[in-house]
């Protein structure tokens, strides 16, 4: 969640903006949250997996942050606090929407699964930078992300897209750092499995048929 300014400067600016908002300058609030709009939206998407729902929750979370700003103590970064509110709002929405399904969306605190066995040993090699822009690759990534179970997707998004630390991810999601690591491993290996067939040459060459690049 880089905002382009150095950390001490950013923290000072934020503290000043928070003071102004709490002093009644409502306009300063938009300035405060603007650098994190994308982070808030992405965090909501990681749980809800639906654009309209994610936007609704992002708005609710920002308004909630506004009305609770006087309670922000600065123990965490403002961005972490904001993302945490968003995660909580998104989970609430999910729970509300799924109530009729009689299923709990509360995740168990421990990851009870056993080991994950990779399904494919395709050798990806290095992904050339020009391949990163290929539409097929971006579409496959989107599908792979959407196909991840929610509890894995939220960890992957916070760690590998929003670049939160293990500790921040643990704090935001309310799970232990051990659980963050276990879920992150799962998420990354499942993503790899979902994308590996495409990387058997096809994303790189753009050819319809896979070009076998395995060295064995």
């Amino acid at each position, binding site marked *: 969640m880089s905002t382009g300014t150095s950390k001490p400067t950013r923290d000072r600016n934020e503290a000043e903006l928070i003071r102004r908002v709490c002093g009644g300058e*409502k306009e300063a*609030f*938009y300035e405060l*949250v*603007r650098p994190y*709009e*994308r982070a808030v*939206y*992405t965090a909501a*998407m*990681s749980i809800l997996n639906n*654009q309209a729902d994610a*936007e609704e929750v*992002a*708005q609710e979370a*920002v*308004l909630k942050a*506004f*009305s609770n700003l006087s309670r922000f103590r600065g123990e965490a970064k403002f961005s972490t606090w904001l993302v945490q509110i968003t995660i909580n709002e998104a989970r609430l929405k999910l729970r509300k929407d799924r109530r009729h399904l009689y299923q709990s969306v509360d995740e168990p605190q421990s990851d009870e699964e056993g*080991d*994950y*066995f*990779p399904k494919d*040993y*395709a*050798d*990806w*090699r*290095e*992904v050339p930078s020009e391949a*990163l822009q290929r539409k097929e*690759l*971006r579409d496959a*990534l*989107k599908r792979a*992300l959407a196909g991840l179970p929610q509890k894995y997707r939220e960890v*992957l*998004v916070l760690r*590998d*897209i*929003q*670049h939160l630390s*293990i500790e921040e991810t643990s704090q935001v999601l309310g799970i232990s750092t051990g659980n963050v*690591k276990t879920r*992150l*491993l799962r998420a*990354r*290996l499942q*993503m*790899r499995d979902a*994308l*590996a067939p495409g*990387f058997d040459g096809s994303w790189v060459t753009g050819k319809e048929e896979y070009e076998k690049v*395995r*060295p*064995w």
Partner: protein
Amino acid sequence: MKVIEISCLEVWREISNYVDSDVEPELRARMEAHFKVCAHCKAILDGTRNVVKLVADGVEYPVPEGFSKRLYNKIKDV
């Protein structure tokens, strides 16, 4: 230093921590030695690194058009 061998299963358990440089030096040395001789685990390592690299820019979650303006209006209306 003699490097004690490590199984593929143990490597898979730690591969994500390895990518994050979050393993003890002793384990790191064992894993590095394993990757040199095990093409399967090396392929999984490369794939895992690629995943991290590919999702990093976050373009899979584009912010909807007009999002910023609608958010601004919401704040204004409070």
